[in-house]
């Protein structure tokens, strides 16, 4: 059997955002790919060929070799040929609308990351413990007020991480809903419920158009904040970015706006998706809730497993800057490589009973936060937020069940539940 090329009908749905609204379908495809086409090429009409990386070990190896596999020379996320051509038009020749940390390569990437990295290290995050726990408590109280039913995704999971990260950034609370809207337009550009109003999903250029609009919205929003923090720095992330120096120089403008945008988007949507998934799991598994209530020491393991289970980042793409041998294949210079986090996190070779939710996996070396130099900068914050919420909520949550069918965002990039209707009782 020729396993170099994946049959188009098998892999094409992975290139379609609507498929991601059905998690089962996504898992079926990647389970088949891991077995029959673990590292093979997808040739889907309208797209350049992509190597599809499905295995945990390969995803780690490629992510670690950021000297060879770059994020900035071609689109960092899946995009059609037409979409990429339009990006070049908008940006004057670059392959990405954004030039955030994820799109930067060595040596620039390290210099940019160092601007805020110390603030996200475990010791600094630990100092935020009391304030994050206090915010978590207000959201748990809010949930209690909504009993006996709510949409946990919209009412709690979307709002709580938004509040934590935007406070840290220094964005006034009145602007938080606007940031949520822009995030959803960006990550859920193709979802019928969350997309930018007026966007045309039948147009293959839509992602590029929307991302360009969102870029300009972030630019308009953050430009006065940048000017303000340059004049009078405050103890917030906005001041660090606004005054950040790269090899002794000012940040390039597109990179600075993108820096603000990544923290204001990736900093909550992923955590929201994971938190909403956690409630979905609890609503389906009353025995798990009972176990966590009886032994709250299991909560950190529960959080870690929700990240593996949710895997909200579906894919990032890298391009090879030289030939590279892996799994008996040769990835050629210039080839595109699609990293499937959702597949790697269910890799049967890495995780025993990969399709079982197990809060006692130890160590749980999931790849939900990525690997290598681009590993999630916010991972310690995300863990703190989620532990704080569940530690405040689980002792008070007497029962929870689904009050309807949860729904996932139709997004092939960042994907999680957009609706988790629950019926619940709280103390």
């Amino acid at each position, binding site marked *: 059997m020729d396993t170099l090329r994946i049959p188009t009908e098998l892999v094409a749905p992975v290139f379609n955002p609507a498929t991601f609204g059905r998690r089962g379908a996504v898992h079926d495809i990647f389970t088949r790919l891991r077995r029959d086409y673990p590292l093979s090429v997808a040739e889907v009409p309208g797209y350049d060929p992509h190597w599809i990386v499905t295995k945990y070990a390969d995803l*780690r190896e490629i*992510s*670690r070799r950021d000297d060879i596999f770059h994020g900035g020379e071609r689109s960092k996320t899946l995009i059609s040929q037409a979409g990429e051509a339009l990006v070049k038009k908008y940006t004057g020749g670059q392959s990405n609308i954004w030039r955030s940390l994820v799109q930067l390569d060595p040596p620039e990437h390290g210099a940019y990351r160092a601007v805020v*990295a110390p603030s*996200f*290290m*475990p010791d600094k995050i630990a100092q935020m413990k009391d304030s994050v726990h206090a915010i978590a408590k207000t959201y748990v109280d809010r949930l209690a007020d909504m009993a006996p039913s709510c949409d946990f995704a919209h009412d709690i999971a979307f709002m709580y991480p938004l509040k934590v990260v935007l406070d840290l950034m220094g964005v006034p609370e009145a602007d938080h809903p606007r940031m949520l809207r822009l995030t959803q337009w960006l990550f859920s550009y193709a979802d019928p419920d969350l997309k930018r109003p007026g966007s045309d999903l039948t147009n293959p250029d839509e992602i590029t158009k929307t991302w360009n609009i969102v870029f300009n919205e972030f630019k308009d929003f953050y430009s006065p904040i940048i000017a303000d923090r340059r004049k009078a720095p405050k103890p917030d992330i906005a001041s660090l970015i606004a005054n950040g120096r790269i090899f002794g120089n000012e940040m390039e403008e597109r990179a600075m706006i993108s820096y603000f945008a990544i923290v204001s988007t990736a900093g909550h949507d992923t955590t929201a998706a994971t938190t909403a998934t956690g409630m979905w799991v609890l609503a389906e598994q009353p025995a798990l809730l009972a176990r966590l209530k009886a032994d709250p020491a299991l909560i950190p393991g529960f959080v870690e497993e929700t990240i593996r289970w949710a895997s909200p980042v579906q894919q990032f793409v890298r391009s090879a800057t030289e030939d590279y041998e892996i799994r008996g294949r040769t990835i050629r210079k210039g080839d595109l490589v699609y990293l499937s986090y959702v597949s790697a996190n269910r890799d049967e070779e890495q995780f025993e009973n990969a399709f079982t939710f197990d809060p006692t996996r130890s*160590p749980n*070396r999931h790849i939900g936060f990525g*690997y*290598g*130099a681009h*590993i999630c900068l916010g*991972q*310690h914050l995300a863990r703190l937020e989620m532990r704080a919420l569940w530690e405040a909520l689980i002792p008070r949550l007497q029962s929870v069940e689904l009050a309807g069918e949860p729904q996932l965002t139709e997004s092939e990039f960042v994907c999680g539940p957009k609706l988790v209707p629950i019926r619940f009782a709280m103390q």
Partner: protein
Amino acid sequence: MSQAPWKKYLCSTCGTVYDEAEGDADSGIAPGTRFEDLPEDWICPVCGTAKAGFEPYA
């Protein structure tokens, strides 16, 4: 075994702490292994950063 107090080292990429007293069970490194005695190809068990990417930690 050396009498000097155990030291800790921080991964500058992801913030993982290598504690000499604990070693790194994941990578087969026994408790009590000095940082300088870690093999040169040892990498951060969480993010894969090379040994050179670690710095002394309080």
